[in-house]
C-alpha cells in the first residue's frame, strides 16, 4: 500500500434515513486496493445499511462514493456487480440439486444457436474454481459436496473473473474451524491477486487473523478507523459498544442478600448445543437477576433455548430446581415452572391475529378450563389484573395484539408467563425495539419480580442494562463461559474485558 495510490473505494459523508429515522449519519468507509478491511458494529449500528447503499440496494440521501477513482452511484445490485463489487451473504444462496456449473453460471448462461453451451460453461466453471485451488467434477449436483466446498462455490460464483471488491457478510457462521481456514486461504489469495475484501464478522479472533484494517460503526456513524495491529481487543470492544474505559465503577450495590446462599433454581454445566455452544456454565438462584453477556454469536440465545427445551443440547447437564428434570420440549419446561420470552417477539412471541387476552393466557389456558371449555370469566379477571398491574396500554383485552406498540406487546408476553407463577423467567433481549420509557418500566418490573423471589435469567446486548439490573453476570465468548462476575465485579469494564479476552486477561488488566 503506497500513500499516493488512490483508495479503491471511498464512501464519504453518507446519510440515510428510513421514515425520518436516521440509519446513517455521515458514515465513512475507505478501502485500499488489495486490502482486507473489517467492518464491525452492533446490531443496528448501520453496517448493513452502508453495504446496501454501496451495492445499490438502497439509495443514499447524501454523501459521495468514489469507486476505482470515479464517482459511483449504483442503481441496482446488478450494476454494482457489473462494476466489480461482489457480495457474499451469510446463507449460501445456491440451488443444491443443480450441478456446480449451473450454480456458477446461473443468470449468465452461455448460449450457442439459442441453446445452452454446456461445454463452454463447464470449462468456465472449472477455470473459475481452479483459481481457488478447487478441482471437482463440476457436472455433479452441488449437494454432493461438503459445506466448505459449497461455500467456496458460492464465493467463486460471486467473485467471477472480474471482481475488484468482495463483501463478505458473516461468511463463517455456517463453517467449522477447518472450513474457516480454507476460507481464510481464499481471502489471502484474493488479496494477493489485488482484490479488496470487506469482512463483516463478530468473531474477534477471525478479524485479527485475517484483516488489515478495521472500521468501527456505532449508531449510524463511523467512530474509528484503525490498523488492526494497532488496536487492542479491549479498545475494539469498548469502541464498538461505546463505553469508556475510564468509566466510574457502578455506584451503589445490588441486593446480594439471602439469595447468595440459596440453592440455585437453575444450574447449567458444560452445556453444548450444535456448533454455537461448546461449554457453557451458569446458575440462577431464586430472587436474583442473572445476566448473560457476550457479543453476537457467542451462544447466549442458543444456550437459553436449550434450557427451555426448545432446542436439544448435545452435551452437558441442565438442573432445574435441584432435580434432574427431563425437559425435552417447552411444554415440559413450562410445567416445571419456567417462562421464556424469546428474542424475536414477532416471529416467536405474539400471535398477531389474536387478542391481548388470548395472547396473555396462551400458556395458562389449559388451567383455565372446565372440562376443556375456557372459563371466560376467570380469564378476563386475570387479564384485567395484569393489564392494570403492568400498565399495558391497550383499548381493552379484546384488542388485537399486533395493533399494540412493541413495549406493550412485550408486557403482554411477560404477563403470559407471570400469570403462571413461574420460578424462573428467561428473558432474551427483553427491551429490544422498545422505546426508552417502556424500557425503564420493563426493567423496573423485572427487578420488582426478582425481589419477590423469582429467578430471572436475562440476555441483553446492552451492557448498561445488564450491569444495572443483574447481580451476577456470566460472560460468554465463542460458545464458552469465560467469566463469572459477581457483586462489585459487575461493571461495564470487567464485562467488556471478558467479552474481549476471557477470564485470564481480565485479571491482568484489572491489575495493570
Amino acid at each position, binding site marked *: 500500500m503506497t500513500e499516493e495510490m488512490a483508495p479503491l473505494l471511498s464512501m464519504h459523508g453518507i446519510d440515510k434515513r428510513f421514515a425520518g429515522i436516521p440509519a446513517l449519519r455521515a458514515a465513512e468507509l475507505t478501502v485500499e486496493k488489495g486490502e482486507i478491511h473489517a467492518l464491525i458494529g452492533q446490531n443496528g449500528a448501520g453496517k448493513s445499511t452502508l453495504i446496501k447503499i454501496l451495492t445499490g440496494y438502497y439509495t443514499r440521501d447524501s454523501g459521495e462514493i468514489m469507486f476505482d477513482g470515479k464517482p459511483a452511484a449504483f442503481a441496482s445490485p446488478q450494476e454494482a456487480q457489473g462494476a466489480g463489487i461482489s457480495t457474499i451473504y451469510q446463507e449460501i444462496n445456491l440451488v443444491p440439486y443443480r450441478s456446480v456449473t449451473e450454480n456458477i453460471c446461473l443468470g449468465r448462461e452461455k448460449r450457442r444457436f439459442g441453446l445452452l453451451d454446456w461445454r463452454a460453461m463447464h470449462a468456465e466453471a472449472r477455470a473459475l474454481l481452479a483459481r481457488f485451488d478447487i478441482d471437482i467434477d463440476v457436472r455433479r449436483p452441488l449437494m454432493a459436496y461438503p459445506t466448505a466446498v459449497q461455500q467456496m462455490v458460492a464465493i467463486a460464483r460471486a467473485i467471477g473473473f472480474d471482481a475488484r471488491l468482495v463483501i463478505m457478510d458473516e461468511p463463517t457462521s455456517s463453517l467449522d474451524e477447518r472450513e474457516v481456514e480454507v476460507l481464510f486461504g481464499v481471502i489471502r489469495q484474493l488479496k494477493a491477486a489485488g482484490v479488496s475484501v470487506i469482512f463483516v464478522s463478530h468473531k474477534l479472533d477471525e478479524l485479527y487473523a485475517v484483516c488489515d484494517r478495521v472500521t468501527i460503526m456505532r449508531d449510524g456513524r463511523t467512530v474509528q478507523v484503525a490498523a488492526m495491529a494497532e488496536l487492542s481487543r479491549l479498545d475494539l470492544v469498548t469502541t464498538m459498544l461505546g463505553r469508556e474505559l475510564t468509566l466510574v465503577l457502578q455506584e451503589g450495590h445490588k441486593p446480594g442478600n439471602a439469595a447468595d446462599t440459596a440453592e440455585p433454581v437453575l444450574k447449567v454445566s458444560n452445556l453444548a448445543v450444535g456448533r454455537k455452544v461448546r461449554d457453557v456454565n451458569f446458575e440462577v438462584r431464586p430472587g436474583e437477576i442473572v445476566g448473560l453477556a457476550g457479543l453476537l454469536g457467542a451462544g447466549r440465545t442458543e444456550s437459553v433455548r436449550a434450557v*427451555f427445551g*426448545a432446542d436439544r443440547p448435545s452435551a452437558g447437564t441442565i438442573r432445574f430446581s435441584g432435580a434432574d428434570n427431563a425437559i425435552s*420440549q*417447552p*411444554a415440559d*419446561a*413450562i*410445567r416445571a415452572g419456567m417462562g*421464556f420470552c*424469546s428474542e424475536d417477539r414477532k*416471529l*416467536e*412471541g*405474539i*400471535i*398477531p*391475529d*389474536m387478542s391481548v387476552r*388470548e395472547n396473555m393466557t*396462551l*400458556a395458562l*389456558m*389449559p388451567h383455565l*378450563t372446565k372440562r*376443556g*371449555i*375456557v372459563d*371466560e370469566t376467570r380469564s378476563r379477571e386475570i387479564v384485567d389484573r395484569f393489564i392494570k398491574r403492568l400498565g399495558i396500554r391497550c383499548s381493552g383485552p379484546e384488542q388485537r395484539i399486533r395493533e399494540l406498540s412493541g413495549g406493550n406487546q412485550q408486557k403482554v408476553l411477560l404477563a*403470559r408467563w407471570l400469570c403462571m407463577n413461574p420460578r424462573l423467567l428467561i428473558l432474551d433481549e427483553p427491551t429490544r425495539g422498545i422505546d426508552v420509557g417502556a424500557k425503564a418500566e420493563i426493567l423496573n418490573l423485572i427487578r420488582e419480580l426478582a425481589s419477590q423471589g423469582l429467578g430471572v435469567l436475562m440476555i441483553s446486548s446492552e451492557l448498561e442494562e445488564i450491569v444495572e439490573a443483574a447481580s451476577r453476570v456470566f460472560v460468554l465468548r465463542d460458545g464458552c463461559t469465560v467469566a463469572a462476575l459477581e457483586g462489585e465485579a459487575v461493571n461495564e469494564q470487567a464485562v467488556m474485558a471478558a467479552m474481549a479476552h476471557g477470564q485470564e486477561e481480565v485479571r491482568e488488566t484489572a491489575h495493570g
Partner: protein
Amino acid sequence: MAETATTLPPAPAREASRFEVRTFLTRYGAWIALTLLILVNLAITPNFATWQTLNVNLTQVCAIVIVGVGMTLVIATGGIDLSVGALMAIAGALAPLIFLGKLFPLPHPVIGIALAFVLPVLAAGALGWCNGWLITHLRIQPIIATLVLFIAGRGIAQVFTNGNLQVFNLPEFQFIGLGRVFGIPFQAILMVAIVAAAAWMLRRTVFGRQILAIGGNERAARLAGIPVASVKQRVYLISGLLSGIAGLIVIARNSAADANLVGLGMELDAIAAVAVGGTLLTGGRATVVGTLVGALIIQLVRYTLLANGVPDAAALVAKAAIIVMAVWLQRQGQR
C-alpha cells in the same frame, strides 16, 4: 369548479370512510353476497321461494359443508387436506359391503346397519389420523402427505368393491341421506349440528384456541407449551371422520356406491367454500359459519345459473370468479 370542491368531503374523512367500507366488506362480504343472491333469485328465478328449491339446494350443499367444516379446522392450523374426497369414497365403498353382509356374516340386519354407520366413519377417521401422523412425525408438508391418500384412496375403495357399482335399497340406512324430520332433510339437520358444534368448539374450547394459535404462529405456540403435534393430529382425525360421514350421505342419497365417483373433486369444493367463507388460507383466522355461507354462495350461484338456462360449464367459470373475488377481499382486509 367550486362546486366540485364543496361536494367532496375533506381528504382524511374520505380515507377513513373508505377504510371502514373495506373492513366492513371483508367482515360481512360473504353474508352480503348471500343476501344479494337470494334477492336476485326471488326476483328472476321462477318458483324460487318454495320448499322444494330449499330442499334441493340444502341436499346439494350438505356434503360440501360437512367436509368443509373439517377443512376449515385443518386450514386454521395452516395445513390442508386433499384426501377428503378419497376418504368419502372409501367410507362409501365400505358401508354397502358391511350391510350387504359381503365383508363378514351378519347376525342381524340391524347390527349390520349400525356397523355400516360406525365402521366406515371410523375407517375414514383412522386414515385422517394417518395423514396427521405423516405431517407431525415425519414432518411431511400437509399438501404432500394428504396427496398420498388423494391418489391411493380411491384405488383402495375400488379394490374393496372390485371396481363394481354397488346398488342397494335399504331405507333404514338411507335415512341419513333421504330421511326427513318434520319435513326437513335429516342431512341438513346433521349439517347444522356439525357446523354449530365446530363453531362453538373453535370459539370456546382450549382445543379450538390452540388450533388458531398454531395457525397464527406455530413457533410461538410451541414456545407457549401448546402440544402442536397432538393438536394437528386431532384436526386431521376430525377431517377424516367428517369425510366419512359425508361419504355415507352421498351414497345413501344415490342408492348406490360408485368408488369412482363418490366425493370426486370434493377437496376443491371444500377448499373453495372455506376460502369464500372468509377463513384465512395461511391459518390463524377461521370461521366455520363462514364456510357454511361460502358453500351456500357457491351452490346458489350454480343453481341460479342452471335454473335460468345457463349451462353448467358457465357455472364453473362463475364459481372460479367468486373464489377470486373472495380471496381478493381477504387481502384487502390484511392491509
